[in-house]
């Protein structure tokens, strides 16, 4: 009977409880982290306001039928573009990017909500492809659809949004059931772009390496047009060679595959070039700190080191709320936003960090379960996208603290201070609840 009652519930209480738990931990830690700073009241007030708006967003996401997004995806798409163009036109310029709408009582970062909406749009697009999902055209179509969004975000620029959205899209595509070949291509694209960027950054920070001819050539490819042409020719030749090689082996693969692979590798290369040119010195320093964290403990590696000191000094049970010396005395940078986990670790100890990790895992688990109980394919895809998004957030935030991911300046949803992110994340879970509420009753 009870199982039936739960089964008929319009709300996934487990997901709701996990979300509530995270929000509570977050609110406590923000209050603790802000305890010593003069604008503490303003931060806490803003957070409470964001929580109220977020609650509204959650209810909105939950009560609207999610299938509306599927039907009205074009309108949604237009709305995203309007928001992003609007912020470029009317947004305020803060800390090197034009990402904020300044409203009378608070500021809003439209790229946060766009992140969720983009996933909804992409899911809708892919859902509509139906059985043609394995075709190349779906992938190209999605690419063409999303390029304007990514382009507008790049213009702000807001890399962190892309860092989250891109993996979430890959997860979405994976769930949709696209041909694995294309997914590998996407991974290849990301890998080429990432390796090129990190390589160039490393050389930029260690100019003495250019004495080696190969490294010198590699470095030149990022700036010299002739060298870029050389890379294009080399990759094209390689693609042709592979095609020819397989033909000699009497393995007849569509030549189209080889062309696509070549194009993707080159695309990754130029994406890398683009990112490399956009990168600011502090971002290069972050990559440097990630590659060699001990090289400069006072400099770029300082943040991660201090965050780890905070976590490690917390021990199993932590120093208690409002008692963390590392965060209270300001050794942990960005303690209420990107490094909020360090505060959790210091004040609540291992139990605190494991609790947050566990609650995230619960959220991921519920998203999977909701996805499989969804009433239609669109619901399943929405859950897949959300899963990808939260999974990426979790990986990057924890990874950053334990030193396996470079510092990316990405908040941890529900926990970090940051109204737009909180609202968008609550809205995303609201949409998932909406899927749950309209699930197949079995």
């Amino acid at each position, binding site marked *: 009977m009870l199982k039936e009652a739960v089964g008929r519930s319009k709300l996934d209480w487990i997901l709701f409880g996990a979300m509530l738990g995270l929000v509570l931990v977050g609110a406590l830690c923000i209050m603790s982290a802000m305890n010593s700073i003069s604008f503490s009241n303003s931060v806490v007030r803003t957070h409470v306001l964001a929580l109220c708006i977020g609650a509204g967003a959650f209810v909105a996401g939950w009560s609207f039928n999610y299938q509306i997004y599927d039907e009205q995806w074009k309108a949604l798409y237009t709305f995203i573009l309007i928001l992003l163009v609007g912020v470029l036109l009317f947004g305020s310029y803060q800390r090197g990017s034009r990402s904020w709408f300044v409203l009378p009582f608070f500021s809003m970062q439209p790229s946060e909500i766009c992140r969720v909406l983009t996933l909804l749009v992409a899911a809708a697009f892919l859902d509509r492809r139906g059985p043609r999902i394995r075709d190349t055209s779906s992938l190209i179509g999605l690419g063409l659809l999303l390029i304007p969004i990514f382009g507008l975000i790049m213009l702000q620029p807001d890399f962190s949004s892309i860092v989250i959205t891109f993996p979430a899209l890959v997860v979405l595509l994976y*769930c949709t059931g696209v041909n694995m070949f294309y997914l590998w291509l996407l991974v290849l694209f990301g890998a080429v772009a990432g390796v090129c960027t990190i390589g160039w950054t490393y050389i930029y920070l260690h100019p003495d390496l250019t004495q080696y001819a190969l490294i010198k050539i590699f470095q030149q490819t990022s700036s010299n047009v002739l060298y870029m042409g050389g890379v294009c020719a080399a990759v094209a030749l390689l693609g042709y060679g592979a095609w020819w090689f397989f033909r000699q082996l009497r393995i007849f693969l569509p030549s189209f595959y080889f062309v696509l692979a070549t194009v993707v590798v080159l695309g990754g290369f130029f994406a890398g070039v683009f990112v490399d040119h956009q990168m600011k010195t502090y971002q290069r320093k972050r990559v440097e700190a990630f590659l060699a964290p001990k090289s400069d403990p006072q400099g770029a590696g300082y943040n991660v080191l201090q965050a780890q000191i905070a976590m490690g000094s917390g021990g199993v049970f932590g120093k208690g709320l409002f008692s963390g010396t590392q965060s209270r005395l300001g050794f942990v940078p960005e303690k209420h936003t990107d490094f909020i986990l360090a505060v959790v670790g210091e004040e609540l100890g291992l139990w605190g*960090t494991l609790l947050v990790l566990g609650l995230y895992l619960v959220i*991921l688990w519920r998203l*999977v379960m909701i996805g499989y109980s969804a009433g239609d394919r669109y619901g*399943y895809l929405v859950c897949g996208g959300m899963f990808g998004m939260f999974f990426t957030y979790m990986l990057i935030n924890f*990874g950053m603290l334990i030193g396996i991911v470079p510092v990316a300046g990405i908040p941890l949803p529900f926990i970090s201070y940051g109204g737009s992110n909180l609202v968008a994340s609550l809205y995303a879970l609201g949409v998932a609840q909406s899927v749950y509420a309209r699930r197949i009753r079995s």
Partner: protein
Amino acid sequence: MPATKIFFNTRLKLLFFVACAACGIIALRLVDIQVLRHSYYLEMAERNRTQVLYQTAPRGRIFTSDGVVVASNAPSFSFYYLAAGRKDIPYLQQLAQDFAPKLGMSEEALTEKLTEGLKSGKAIALAENLSPKTTIALQELQIYYPGVYLLEETKRDYPYGGFASHLIGYLGSMTDSEWRRRDPAMNYRLNSKIGKNGIEKKYEAELKGEDGGAYLEVDYRGRVRRVIEDRKWQPGSDVHLTLNFAVQRAAEDGLKSTSTGRGAAVALDTRTGAVLALASAPAYNPNIFVPYNDADVSNISKNISEYNLAIQGTYPPASTFKIITAIAALTDPDFDPSAHVNCPGHYDAGSRIFKCWKRTGHGLMNLLDGLANSCDVYFYDVAARVGAAAIERVQRAFMFGRPTGIDLPGERAGNLYGPTKRARNKSYWFIGDTLNLSIGQGELLVTPLKMAQFAAAIASKGNVYRPYYIEKLVSNRTGKETQVGKPEILNKADYPASTYDLIWTSLKYTTDTGTARWAKIPGLDVYAKTGTAQNPHGDDHAWFLAFAGKPGEEPSIAVVVFVEYGLHGSSAAGPIAREMLKAYFGVDDMGNPVAQRQSLLTQENYEELLETPAGE
């Protein structure tokens, strides 16, 4: 399974397992950081937030046996920079620019020090021992510069300057090797000052005390949030010397006024072996090291004489040795001390003529006259009869050729001179050697302290004491007293009382009528012997050996004065010994008791003195 579910695949489930695996890895790493390496990170966090401004504890004081403070502490101000303060280079440059002239440093030097402090992440002393004027100027300036602090500390002060400098030693910064070998339990800091010589070095652990300091909680910019703990310093233990202030002072003043300014004067308590005075010239003033500027110290220490002539200078004892020859003669039952020997001014040793110091000769001499007039020929004759071996035996009884065993580094043993030693070296002993030995010349070498030990042994009728100069250590914390030096008889020179009586009589006679008339003080029994050591390289060295007591009492003090190139024992060294004896017994030239001429510094009036502003 409803047909509508056809659109599902297992891919999301697969991803969930990936997520579980990722969470597992993250959890393991969290356990690693938060549990396994917890103590390491906790220590790092503590180091992050605490900064200590140390305050050097006052070192233990050093007193003479009569309660005079000869080493104490005076308040001083130091100027610190707390590295966690504002760190940007422009700020440091501004700081250096404003403070350098006040501190009397160059801007570059100050900037360098600031950068050094920045690197170490700890509070660093920019300047120490600041003058009151500088202190006031800095007090005004420091308000505008977070991160710099003016701290009251104590500095070593030697109120009597070079008083017993060779015994007391001096302080200096630690060298690299000293830093490496330091005792970790002592909590030394890089700018700690340690004893470099003498008592300051030897009793470093006891004198040091425990530094206090303010343990501050600072934020990431170095702003002080609160004081976690304000730990009061614990002063070190006091050292009480056996030295008699007046005697030591008389010895030092006397040596300073000699023509060459080089020499040594030692006074021992004949009943215990306690050192009443141990002066060596040239001396130095340990106060010059107190500014502690490393470069200065190494310069100064090049120029000062750490050479302690009293224990490191070895010279022939000359005529003072005739006492030994006399004792050796008295061991011979056939020897008659009253028998006369004619001194024509020379002695025919067969192959060579040995001269007496008095060319015209002394005429008929017995033992009493021989010692009183220090007649060489008499002792040549005696030595030739009793033999060198007997003299060597007496030397051994008084432990010649061996260190006195005083607790001072670098003491020289001197050289025993005798046929046995010659034989061991597979060489020959000639009659000339016997004659040279009898008057304390030749290869015989002693330190002034050795002779003082010898004089005390004669005065105590044979007790060869180990000299000691530290009576006790008194802890300022617990009041506990630790006895350090106690009387220790190294050897008993066992000769009949009649022998000593005869020697005493002769030496008294020498003082009353003979060569040692300088030491004659009415109202005191003074026994003395002079000596003039021939020096082939220049002027002769002067010796004066004496011991004295109140009439009817045992002699209580033995004094030996040595003046390098002093020419004559009686005229160069005698007056110094006389002053020392007068100081010891507190009498004037006529033997009348004198009041203390000046008030000496005890701890009480020393503190009063410090409170009166300078220049008054």
